[in-house]
């Protein structure tokens, strides 16, 4: 069957989304076709805004609407503690616990020679600059407790300790090899509260 081109394009694009198959894409496209034009416009704008308005925080590499993310902008947050995580999703996981009130720093990955990720491709230099400029007193390393996370923590501790800053690591309450993202809130909460000095 040959479909009108705009419909075909819409189906193609929708089916690129995760967990949307060909059939679902077709149903969604046909549904949109029947919908109120205002609703469709709102949806289209929301999707565009997502890309246009969301930026990466200049300070901590979290997602943000402005130059800085909501956490960095908040005056209520403890400005002298930085929690280092691998990905933005880890911030979401820790924030859900309501146990942490400092700032974050997203590394953007971990050291993995096999995957071609070296220290130069992570936001490590930026972290060191921040510690220096923001008078940070404590850096909490909240990387996943797997082989690569451990090596990266070691690497960071080596660089940060000489700066005279307290370096801690979240307690090992987390399941081994388990990602922060998938651990339950209570476990992460406990892990963040009881941290170990390195």
């Amino acid at each position: 069957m040959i479909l009108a081109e705009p419909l075909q394009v819409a189906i193609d694009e929708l089916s690129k989304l995760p967990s949307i198959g060909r059939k679902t894409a077709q149903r969604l496209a046909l549904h949109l076709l029947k919908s109120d034009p205002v609703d469709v416009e709102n949806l289209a704008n929301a999707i565009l805004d997502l890309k246009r308005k969301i930026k990466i925080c200049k300070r901590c590499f979290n997602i943000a609407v402005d130059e800085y993310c909501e956490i960095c902008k908040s005056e209520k947050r403890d400005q002298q503690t930085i929690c280092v995580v691998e990905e933005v999703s880890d911030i979401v996981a820790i924030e859900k616990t309501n146990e942490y009130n400092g700032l974050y720093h997203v590394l953007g990955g971990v050291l993995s020679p096999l995957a071609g990720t070296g220290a130069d491709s992570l936001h490590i230099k930026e972290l060191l600059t921040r510690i220096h400029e923001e008078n940070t007193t404590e850096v909490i390393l909240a990387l996943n407790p797997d082989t690569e996370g451990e090596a990266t923590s070691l690497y960071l501790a080596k660089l940060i300790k000489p700066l005279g800053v307290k370096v801690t690591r979240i307690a090992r309450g987390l399941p081994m090899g388990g990602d922060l993202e998938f651990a339950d809130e209570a476990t992460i909460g406990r892990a963040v509260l009881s941290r170990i000095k390195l």
Partner: protein
Amino acid sequence: MILQTLELKNFRLHKNTFIKFSRNLNYIVGGNGQGKTSLLEAIYYLCTSKNLLQSPDSEVVNFDEKFFEISGDFINGSGNKIRILYSLETGKKNIFLNEKQIYKSSEIIGKFPVVTLTQTDHFITQGSPLYRRKLIDSIISQASQTYLKTLMEYNRILKQRSSLLTKIRETGYPVYEEELEVWNASLVKKGSEIIEKRLEFINEFNGYVKNSYNEIMGEKEIPALSYKSTVSTIDLQNIASVFNENLQKRKREEIARGYNLIGPHRDDVIFKINGYDLKKYGSQGQNKTFQISLKFAQFFYLKDKLNKTPIFLLDDVFGELDSERIEKISFYLKKIGQAFITLTDFTNVENLNKDENDLMIHISKGEVKNVS
């Protein structure tokens, strides 16, 4: 742990085989290629979900057929039935524990400990260090989940580290050498844990091997195991610091070769009889006796550590042995409890000391001919 019954469908030569086993010794007798070792292979599948001879599952399916099925009834705590069904069409192996499907073979590992003696065991005393590391790693892992986890982490570190060494060689950037420092630290940490655990194991295991060897050979020969490390040949008291020192010393060499040159992954275990190196000076008979002693020792070691009697599988243990040795081993086997032992037609059955509780199961062309 006792295996009560075994049922096979389309398993190699066995189209349809059902056997009720003795709680004591089960001698499986038959000519070459009649399907006696297949019974051990099947029991090993039940215990580990893996193939004893490292054959692909597809090869095990009877010629002309599309699947194989193995079922076994164990007395294991509350009693456990294991069923394994492999389909040639899907290439999938389904495992059922008490008729409930399990999805990870790790769920049964350790629950059904098994000790095997096979034809390839001559590599343990005569082959490369790899076979000896494999032996001790598998024994320690069966007794300790922590060790297995450390071993897996260590292997991951090795891969990362050799990848980095290659990168340093290719680029020559000194920045990467800072990264190497942390992989060194990880390597030393996990590597030292492995070496410490192996040393502790060998220290304890020596007693078990002495006992077993003595049962088979008498006291005139004394066996011993010792650990030979690439980390240090003299001082293993402060493993971590020696390990670190030697890594620094050989840094250039490692970078030039892009290879992890020292660590437990390159270590060896040395077997000795009366102080002489078995590999260099041992006779064929001494090698065979040593291999058998190691497996008996493994059996008793695991039995003590796990508080559970492993399943003991011995493939043609009596081949190449004199009648005195056969008699000694057959007496020793009575201390095991249940065991499964294949025999060729040529084995001198007179020396076996079979009693009324033991079974002699005759196999021919994939069928049980008679049981006595």
